[in-house]
């Protein structure tokens, strides 16, 4: 009946076992972020961080509210356009441009959410898909997006008028900061009184209503927050690559973020980060070989659904919990 049916493949308990490992995970993550630009190509790491934030923002909706949105590309790519336009045409300071993109994404999220939230389950997903297709054509036709060309040569500018983001490591520092702030915000929302109500709605919407909750308001709130954080990721990506294109608003992008989230582990904090890492790495590896990446993506998706439905982090978490519990108590 309820939307939770859609996310039965999710392991909602998986996050629990990770909770106490959080400090370790954060330390490892920070360590990796410091080392990464010296080991890998910095642009690649920045791309990875943007997609990790994107997938995490998406997971807030799918994993913690039980809403499957098929329209998140609109917020990702839409924010990229807004930021690119603000930085290039209006010459806004980069942080302000990112903020502008984020606010635009939140506004688009509110518009899409108000319409889509009235529908449940698969109809919600279809409504978001339809609306994002409409948005795609608006972006295609709008004069400021320059259609197939996109907005190119977006200046990274000087952060707060001082730090030149043309310097790769300066840009990398900003991306890291945006990523950490974004993740902290997601963490706070998910583990807040509001987040508890979201989980209750995910688990059993009818029961949440019968406890007196106006579930539509909570869902809309979560939708707008997820859209805004997605926009934060998209805005940052636009500055990293200095370009905003139709690619980021196309439905492929909505599909890709679903794949990242499912592969990493829906409803877990670290899952989307891991999933985004794997997908972006694979894309990069095969980009130069000429081998069709979509074939590999499809294969991964099939394997993921058939063998480890809880995703990499979800399955790992379950395994760790079992090995810890086995020697001790039996129900």
């Amino acid at each position, binding site marked *: 009946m309820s939307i939770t049916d859609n996310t039965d493949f999710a392991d*909602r*308990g998986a996050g629990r076992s990770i909770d106490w490992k959080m400090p370790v995970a954060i330390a490892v993550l920070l360590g990796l972020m410091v080392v990464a630009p010296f080991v890998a190509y910095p642009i690649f790491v920045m791309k990875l961080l943007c997609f990790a934030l994107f997938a995490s923002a998406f997971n807030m909706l799918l994993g913690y509210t039980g809403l499957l949105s098929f329209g998140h590309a609109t917020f990702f790519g839409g924010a990229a356009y807004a930021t690119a336009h603000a930085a290039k045409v209006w010459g806004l300071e980069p942080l302000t441009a990112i903020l502008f993109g984020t606010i635009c994404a939140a506004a688009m999220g509110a518009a899409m959410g108000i319409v889509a939230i009235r529908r449940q389950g698969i109809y919600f997903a279809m409504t978001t898909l339809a609306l994002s297709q409409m948005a795609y054509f608006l972006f295609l036709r709008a004069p400021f997006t320059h259609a197939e060309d996109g907005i190119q040569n977006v200046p990274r500018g000087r952060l707060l008028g001082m730090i030149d983001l043309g310097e790769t490591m300066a840009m990398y520092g900003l991306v890291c900061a945006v990523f950490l702030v974004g993740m902290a915000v997601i963490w*706070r*929302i998910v*583990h*807040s*009184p*509001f*987040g*508890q*109500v979201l*989980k*209750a709605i995910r*688990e*059993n919407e*009818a*029961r*949440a*209503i*019968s*406890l*007196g*909750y*106006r*579930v539509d308001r909570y869902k809309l*709130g979560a939708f707008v*927050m997820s859209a805004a954080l997605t926009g934060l990721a998209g805005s940052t990506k636009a500055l990293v690559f200095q370009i905003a294109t139709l690619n980021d608003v196309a439905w492929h992008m909505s599909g890709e973020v679903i794949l990242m989230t499912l592969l990493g582990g829906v409803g877990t904090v670290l899952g989307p980060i891991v999933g985004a890492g794997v997908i972006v790495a694979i894309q990069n590896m095969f980009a130069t070989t000429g081998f069709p990446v979509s074939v590999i993506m499809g294969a991964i998706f099939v394997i993921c659904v058939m063998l480890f439905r809880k995703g990499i982090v979800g399955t790992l978490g379950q395994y760790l919990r079992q090995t810890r519990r086995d020697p001790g108590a039996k*129900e």
Partner: protein
Amino acid sequence: MTAHDRTLQQPVAARAALSARGLSKRFGDFQAIDDVTLEVAEGTIHALIGPNGAGKSTLFGLLTKFIPPTSGTITLGGTDITRFKPEEVVRQGMVRSFQISAVFPHLSLRDNVRVALQHKHGLDRQFWLPERRLNALNGEVDALLDKVGLSDLAGRLASEVSYGRKRALELATTLALDPQVMLLDEPMAGMASADIGTIADLIRRSGEGRTIIMVEHNLDVVEDLCDRVTVLARGAVLAEGSFDEIRASQEVRESYMGAGHD
């Protein structure tokens, strides 16, 4: 909005916690509920019985506004709630449970009850506060879990406990809202006989000062618990009275007691 207006617009309804007049529901060609009039006196336990498909759960859905009625009016404690949304009905003091155990499976028992309390304490919209602020509710949560005998399982996930305990948990979350009127849809269905006694006891104790309407197939439980019985058949009221009156009725015997129950 007259949601909180508790003045007695209808003096007649003052003693009735809940009343429905001429309530009907059509699904296409199917008349699920046909002109049902029901009066539930304050502070009583009222049973709703009838064969499968009689429309008991549909009637619950109508009374709590989960299903919009085709016609008729519903009055709760003197307030006309016919046009209310389901969550407004809850805020007006009438809470339902579901036939299929309605818990939040991947939340702990403690979190299940706590979610029910969050709204009352104004701790349901704060996305900027840490979860540990909710620990302020734990005293109340533990008292409720204790009431239904689940305190030692507070940290377990609801999906991990037995069916009987899920039903007890559901009762605890319903009680968390401190409703004036509780609608319990087959609270004993699928339970072991040992658990039935416990839950019956619980309903009796928690029912003090409240009005309860329950769908129940176990007639021993109905006899034991309920002050008044309404028999529903094919969407209409077949009979209403005390348990003994209902048992004596030839009509009811034929349609229900003789047939389905042993």
